[in-house]
């Protein structure tokens, strides 16, 4: 039963590179082509906002929960944001139970920066009482099926879930916060950041790498772009290097694709 995993990997690598040399991707897509995106929001009624995304075969759920907490001392008039990604072992044979590893942490931090730096959420609107009480916005990414490019799928679903998030009414009575879950208003959202991840394989930049491509890629670049076409986050990962001109190409390509993806996704909200 236990097949020779190494042999399989080498065969797959060969297949991906072979296709590239013939000017093609292993799944037949154009170099700049995203996989089909299917988005469903409000899938979890226990959450204040939620979304389920399919990006090709990659599948994940994001749930947004609002909880009453205390503002950070240095931002007493703001709510807080906490992004967490769980790479649960259900989603991939290499994922292991336990606290988030470096991959899960990198994923959640890149998504966090996309949300935070785009300023899509007005954290001030999440203050309940200055210095005392605020909403903490938990964005939990729960990966179900891993077929590559968790970065873009996670940010898309997170942003969609935030766009659908409703904030319960909160009142301070006798220094305590009373929450009325039945009366809600939409979370104020001011932007729609989209990240575009490119894999560098054999000197080619491949948009939205699938898992087979991720396994063989030399480096990965993720560029997060706001609605105005500005950059709010970049992350190069994996142990390869790339020359500046490819980086310039990646930035331009990301800006172009981000707008396209945003249109596709917004149509599904």
């Amino acid at each position, binding site marked *: *039963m236990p097949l020779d995993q190494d042999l399989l990997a080498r065969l797959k690598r060969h297949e991906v590179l072979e296709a590239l040399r013939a000017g093609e991707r292993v799944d037949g897509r154009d170099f700049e082509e995203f996989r089909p995106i299917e988005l469903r929001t409000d899938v979890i009624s226990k959450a204040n906002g939620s979304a389920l995304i399919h990006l090709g075969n990659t599948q994940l759920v994001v749930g947004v929960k609002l909880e009453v907490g205390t503002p950070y001392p240095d931002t007493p008039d703001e709510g807080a944001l906490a992004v967490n990604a769980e790479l649960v072992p*259900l989603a991939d044979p290499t994922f292991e139970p336990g606290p988030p590893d470096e991959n899960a942490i990198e994923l959640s931090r890149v998504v966090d920066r996309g949300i935070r730096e785009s300023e899509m959420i007005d954290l001030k609107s999440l203050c309940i009482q200055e210095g005392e009480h605020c909403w903490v916005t938990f964005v939990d990414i729960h990966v179900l099926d891993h077929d590559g490019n968790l970065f873009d799928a996670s940010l898309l679903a997170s942003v969609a879930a935030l766009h659908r998030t409703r904030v319960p009414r909160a009142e301070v009575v006798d220094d305590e916060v009373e929450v009325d879950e039945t009366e809600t208003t939409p979370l104020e959202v001011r932007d729609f950041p989209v990240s575009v991840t490119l894999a560098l394989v054999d000197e080619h930049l491949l948009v939205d790498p699938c898992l087979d491509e991720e396994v063989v890629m030399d480096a990965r670049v993720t560029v997060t772009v706001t609605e105005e076409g500005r950059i709010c986050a970049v992350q190069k990962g994996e142990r390869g290097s790339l020359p500046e001109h490819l980086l310039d190409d990646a930035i331009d390509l990301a800006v172009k694709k981000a707008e396209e993806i945003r249109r596709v996704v917004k149509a599904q909200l």
Partner: protein
Amino acid sequence: MPEEEPERLISEDGLRLDGRKPDEMRPIKIRAGVLKRADGSAYVEVGANRIVAAVYGPRELHPRHKQKPDRAVVRFRYNMAPFSVDERKRPGPDRRSIEISKLSKEALEPAIFTEYYPRTAIDIFVEVLQADAGTRCAGITAASVALADAGIEMRDLVAACAAGKVDGHIVLDPMYYEDGHGEADVPLAMMPKEGEITLLQMDGDMTPEELKKAIRLAKKGCKIIYKEQRRALKRKYGEEE
């Protein structure tokens, strides 16, 4: 959850808060093969429960000294997504989920021909995306379909369902509010073909006769579940497994 606390959980005409009869299940939906990466998978809805199960294996077990020379080691991880419950659940196992994982493993293992797969691991993962009452039963139900979907040889499917005691009545498949306000909860899992019970828990207050009645009712529920499990597998594989 009802806005106001209802005075009674069973109405005068014998119906429950959600309109069900005492021996009526909530709506069930089962799908086999919902994930690509896993060797087998299933999705289950029972009431508002939303549960995904995946199976990996039989596969190599590391470290080696944990291998069993005469059978597969079955491992089970029940996990709740942070957003699956009213108050956000901190990620990671707590005491409740560790107990459920242990009992669910023991509920499924009697059905698996572990002796066919010596020295390997069969890993079962259950993710609760949304929790209504009865997640451990729905998880076992889903896991069993996922095992079949993974092609693991089994004596029978394992179907699971709870009974409860509410306002003095024994009822089938308690939902969230009944679970929280009822007098007892009796989750049960079985292999319906032989009638063998593989999981039984109870907490609350019951006479011995009530408990036996609840067991019989839960068994009835399991048979309904069992039909849906087989239907889901048939839908995927064209004919009964």
